[in-house]
């Protein structure tokens, strides 16, 4: 049976909660159904605070100061954008560890309009010193990466998506995975973008690197394995978040970079996420056209 990343989140947290008494769950009314048992059986450290997202982050920070490892969860804009300053001041500035798990990447909540979209999450969090950013491509990858990073003492953002890649990789926190070898370009596919990238470049002589840890970015692997100075970034949020990291990794080479992702425009349509993918060209065909134009025209 296939499950969603959000369902996997519930299972992973529930299992770890029993093993690690330092874990605390802090919710603001979202996904309470996924944590019903924890909320009932651990009312002291599994908390549904109400609809107050700024306070949710600060309360989690207060618990972290007392030795707990908080897991904070909500829909992307209410977890990242509304309380952005709380994440910056109350976790990063205080140098506290904690975990922030979003649901609804970019326009996953396509029917709800732009108030519920969150394509700015990774780009803005990338500006926070010490913030770790994880973008799993499958439920199992989330489980693996969460277990690897949740207690490492840093604030860590886990970006869950509605869509998952059809193939799982044995991903390692902080590492790029080489999933295809090639010489004419190096394509870095972030999280669920891999499912679009692999069919797009199947017959092209390009390398594909799979990125599930956006920060800290694995500059060493990119520098070591990339045979080309043509770099294509395919990111499932506002395009170009990794440009600075790629430039830093390849600083001794004259690289050309193409950024493919969500454009910075107001999205006024509803419908299905796949319709938004089609409209902005975030499909295997659209990505193929962008890469061919970048390489050959």
């Amino acid at each position: 049976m296939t499950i969603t990343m959000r369902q996997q989140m519930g299972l992973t947290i529930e299992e770890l909660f029993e093993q690690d008494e330092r874990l605390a769950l802090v919710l603001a009314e979202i996904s309470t159904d996924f944590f019903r048992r924890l909320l009932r059986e651990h009312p002291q450290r599994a908390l549904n605070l109400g609809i107050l997202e700024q306070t949710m982050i600060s309360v989690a920070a207060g618990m972290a100061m007392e030795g707990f490892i908080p897991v904070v969860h909500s829909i992307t804009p209410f977890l990242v954008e509304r309380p952005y300053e709380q994440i910056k001041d109350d976790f990063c500035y205080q140098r506290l560890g904690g975990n922030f798990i979003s649901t609804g990447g970019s326009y996953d909540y396509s029917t709800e309009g732009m108030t519920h979209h969150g394509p700015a999450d990774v780009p803005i969090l990338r500006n926070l010193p010490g913030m770790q950013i994880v973008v799993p491509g499958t439920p199992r990858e989330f489980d693996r990466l969460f277990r690897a990073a949740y207690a490492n003492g840093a604030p860590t953002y886990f970006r869950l998506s509605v869509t998952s890649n059809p193939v799982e990789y044995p991903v390692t926190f902080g590492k790029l995975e080489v999933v295809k070898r090639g010489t004419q370009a190096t394509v870095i596919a972030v999280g669920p973008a891999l499912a679009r990238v692999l069919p797009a470049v199947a017959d092209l002589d390009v390398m594909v690197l799979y990125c599930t840890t956006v920060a800290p970015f694995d500059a060493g692997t990119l520098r070591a394995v990339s045979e080309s100075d043509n770099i294509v970034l395919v990111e499932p949020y506002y395009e170009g978040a990794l440009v600075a990291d790629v430039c830093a990794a390849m600083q001794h080479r004259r690289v050309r970079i193409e950024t493919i992702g969500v454009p910075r425009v107001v999205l006024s349509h509803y419908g299905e996420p796949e319709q938004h993918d089609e409209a902005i060209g975030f499909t295997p065909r659209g990505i193929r056209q962008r890469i061919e134009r970048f390489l050959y025209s």
Partner: protein
Amino acid sequence: MVSDLTHIHRLMSMQTGDEKHDWSAYSTLDVLWVLYDLVLRYDAKNPRSEERDRFVLSKGHGPIAFYAILADKGFFPVEQLKNFERWEGILGGHPDRNQVPGVEASTGSLGHGLPMAVGMALALRAKKSDRRVFVLVGDGECNEGSIWESILLAGNRHLSNLTCIVINNHSSPLDLGDLAAKFAVFGWAASTINGRDHEQIYSALSQVYPDRPTAVIAEIERKQS
């Protein structure tokens, strides 16, 4: 109850180089003195002891009275006060928990300290600790939405280990009305005291209610223009 705070005034002046104390700091002086002299449990040589009570200067602004009292109580050498806001110093314009012994939370952006203190109080309850959490907010800070989110939450959670002190020096641009009454309707035990009267301060801060958080509105005279 009369306390001579001449030595604290001198330590405040060490930081600024004059005797014209910043109003934001001077407003907090008596409450902080009584808190650290008579109420709060702490070990200045082991400032992160589990057995301590916690204090959060939520508003972060005007920390020179806070720094002066921490130095006087032995958290760090008095000489550090001379480096207030200097490159080589640890004492910034807003306190930093990672640099200043005795500071529980880095604050400065208004509306962060009270919700962090609520988190501490929830955590202490989860750890079955009987320690208390004190947090100081300014009346101007009470314009922030997160303050009212936290007041609502703490009342709902019956956080009896939490005491919020509002220093009402009348700096709020908005009319806050009867603050004690507002806290009370959110489920707090609230009282209004003279923020310069040490006996009233001690009495209010010593009170613990078994099923409610405590709010103490400390009235301070208006700043003379």
